[in-house]
């Protein structure tokens, strides 16, 4: 019984080491510890503090707009900026209409709540028009930032698809994903395998989609690896573009989706599982309509 316990302990330690070892380098590749925070759809959230701004503002009074920013995504945010757009300065004059905010860490084991920041805009209200009873100033709060996204999954490759007695893994022609912990997500993966007698190649078609509440603007594929080796990828439709633009996916306002196509040669032999990794950076913009009310 004592021997059984010793063998079990050693086995568990070895398995843990093995699993950690398969994770690859920590800086760019996915880590198992980090992975848990990189699932689903989450993004930067912005909330006004109660009474900042106040529900009603009186003529010739000062007011503050204070907002809390929380990075709920599993990735850091940088180059962040908040803008107030559309207020008529005849009624509400802000000291500044835009502010940069510091880089916000993404959620992780060591910072499970994500990075936070507080911004404050100070303003001055002026008088109502003539004998108006109130004035409603509609405006947009716009947040813009840069962030990144990692996609990683274990896939099965098999160059000998018609081998009946292959006891390895089973290839999945299509897989869907709920998200990778960011507003931008790889939503699905199509795997098309050309067997050895037809060239022995695999093609991955990854659908990249904005599932957040804002708009993704420029999505760039910065790294693609299959089993730790670089993978040749390009954005669908960018075949004729210069090399530096082949990796850039420009999202239009109403077309918040694109496809990345990657190809790799298959090794001969039995089926095997390996890791597919794609790393993206993207610019993101979020807008929300608010109002200030000036009353008598």
């Amino acid at each position, binding site marked *: 019984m004592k021997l059984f316990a010793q063998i079990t302990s050693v086995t568990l330690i070895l398995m843990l080491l093995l699993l950690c070892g398969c994770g690859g380098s920590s800086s760019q590749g996915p880590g198992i510890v980090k992975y848990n925070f990189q699932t689903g759809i989450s993004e930067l959230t912005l909330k006004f503090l109660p009474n900042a701004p106040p529900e009603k503002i009186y003529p010739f009074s000062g007011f503050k707009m204070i907002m809390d920013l929380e990075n709920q995504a599993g990735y850091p945010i940088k180059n962040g900026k908040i803008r107030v757009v559309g*207020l008529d300065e005849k009624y509400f004059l802000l000291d500044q209409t835009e502010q940069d905010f510091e880089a916000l860490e993404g959620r992780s084991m060591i910072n499970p709540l994500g990075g936070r920041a507080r911004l404050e805009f100070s303003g001055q209200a002026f008088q109502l028009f003539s004998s108006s009873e109130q004035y409603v100033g509609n405006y947009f709060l716009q947040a813009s930032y840069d962030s990144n996204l990692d996609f990683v999954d274990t896939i099965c490759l098999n160059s000998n698809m018609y081998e009946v007695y292959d006891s390895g893994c089973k290839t999945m022609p299509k897989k869907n994903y709920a998200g990778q912990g960011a507003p931008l997500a790889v939503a699905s993966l199509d795997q098309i395998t050309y067997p050895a007698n037809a060239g022995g190649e695999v093609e991955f078609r990854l659908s990249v989609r904005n599932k957040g509440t804002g708009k993704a603007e420029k999505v760039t594929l910065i790294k693609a690896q299959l089993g730790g080796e670089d993978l040749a990828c390009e954005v669908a439709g960018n075949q004729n573009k210069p090399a530096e633009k082949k990796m850039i996916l420009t999202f239009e306002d109403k077309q918040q989706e694109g496809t990345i196509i990657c190809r790799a040669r298959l090794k001969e032999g039995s089926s095997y599982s390996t890791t597919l990794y794609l790393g993206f950076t993207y610019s993101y913009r979020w807008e929300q309509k608010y109002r200030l009310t000036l009353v008598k």
Partner: protein
Amino acid sequence: MGIGSILGRGAAGAAGKTAASAGTGAAGKSIASSVAKNIAPALGKAASGAGASAAGGAAKGVVWGAGAAVGEGVVNLLKQESFVLFIVGLLHFFWLRNLGNTIHLYSSIALLIFATYVFLAYMAEKGSVANKLGGWIVLLFFLIWYLYNGATLDGLIYFGIIFGAILLVVTIATKGRGFQSALAALFPILFFFMDLGVLSLVFKEVDWQLAKIFSDLILYMPWWSLLALFCFPTEDKSKLSSFMGPVRILAVVYIVIILGGSLIPSVGHDTLIPSAGSLMTAQQQVQEKFQGENPFISNMICIFEGRSDISECVKERQQTAEDTSYCKSVEKLDENTPQFEQCLKDRQEYRQKQQVQVVGSSDPTIKQPTRAELITDKFFPREVNIYPEDNYQVQYPIQVKIINPREQIFMVEVNCNFTKQGSSKPESFSGIVTGGDKLSFPGAGENQFAAGYVTQSRTLYCNYPDNQILNGSYKITFIANLSNVNTVSRLSRVFIGFKDATWRNNWITNNKILDTHFSNRNYASVSPEDFVRLNFAFGHSSDYPIIEANRSIVLNSMIENIGPGEITAVHDYAIKLSGFNIQESPSATSNMNCLEGRDVPMPKGARKDIYLPGCLISSLPLDLTNPEMYIYREFEAEVNYDYLIKKEESIRVSRLS
């Protein structure tokens, strides 16, 4: 008889005539007779008669026969009172009533008597009236009470009792049959009022915005001829129906064309009926406002000219007629003079300016506009009996109620005017107003006071001058002139500068800006519902609020009268577009006036709106030229003016011995 049967008869008659003309000899006679007998009853007799009399030529006979029948028909028509009324009604409409009020009135009285005769005869023929005496009693009562007594309340009671008693006796004597005719006689009396212009007065009294369709009905309806149409015989006994039918059709066509002309889009503009002291004056005033060409004549001329666009042709003719009338009657210019030609040109320009619609709307955030009202209360002495021993002057109090939420300081001057009623020649004189702020407000007269509070009510007295002795019925017109009233309008615009397609898709194509700042899609200027508002708009078009860089920008404005009175002066106006540059134009003076002006000339006539000069904006202020995102900004415009409101009251003063 329906229109269809009349038309059918006409067609059949024509067919009969054609068939008869085609026939020769016996065969022709036979065919002509057969067709005329079976198909064309209206002309059948003529056709068969002609066929019988002409041994060798049925066709010739038919023509002669038809001619004879027409001659006989015309003679019969002239024997028919309703047809005579129809013709005389047309003469009255087209000629007599245009010869002045007196002739119009006498002609109408004569026609009333004749029409009563015709109508009672028609009702008797129909079996609806058995005894006409009651009708004549009612007519006599009406003529005495309305024309001799002047339609007073006392007269109604006095003559009403006398004639009522006579009518009662007649009713009893005729076992109730005389009363039917008494009621029937009211019908021609109704037409008498219509002819004099009662509708004009009604519209004026209820202060209605008169639609053109109704104004045309008032102005272009020969009422007596219309009554005659009712009285045309419907039975074929008189052999007249084949002639009466086309006349009826013509009358229906006339009414349709009148209404059709009225329904042509944009022909003229609805006009407020002006005040009038009597029915004919009211009608005359309505006519002054609608000096267009009779739509019937316009339609006919356009058809004969072979114009394919009849509606456009009618519209052009109407406008030309209105312009000509305006230049003659309002500007008092002689035709065929250079001034007259210039006047016509100015009117055309005015129309074109009117087409540049700069609309404005009420500011929903301002619940209380500046208002003024003239009120007569229970202390107003509408009927006063004065005995010789009474040694005082009757004063007529008028309350001026002012709502002034912005606490503007402006001067109110009140005047009054007495007009004698019931006389053919209206006699008018000014009253003397007292009770103002002469003592407390420097420089003010007895009839003036200053407004400066949020709500203010002042009662002043209107006195008749010492050299006038009131006796009888009068109309008092109270006039309050508000000097230097100020109204501010505001307009919102969005400036985007130069933006790429992606930005435009996000913010403009998606309507994000419009949904946020113009959710009700009102791009017009707004202002409180004061007496007047200055509507202004600028942009790449007047009715679109998003302005880009490097595109031409137009600015248009107008002063709109939205109150119940008249604008008597516009002292100055200013559209506050600080930092905007105006593009110079050949007429530099009017060009610069597009932003501000003083002592605006008041348009003559009953026009409500004053169009201000427009211009092109050549450049925007620096901060609006190319913002990083967009800039939403509000602009103001201000107008300072005098405004006049009126109130009329009827009074009666009886001097008793």
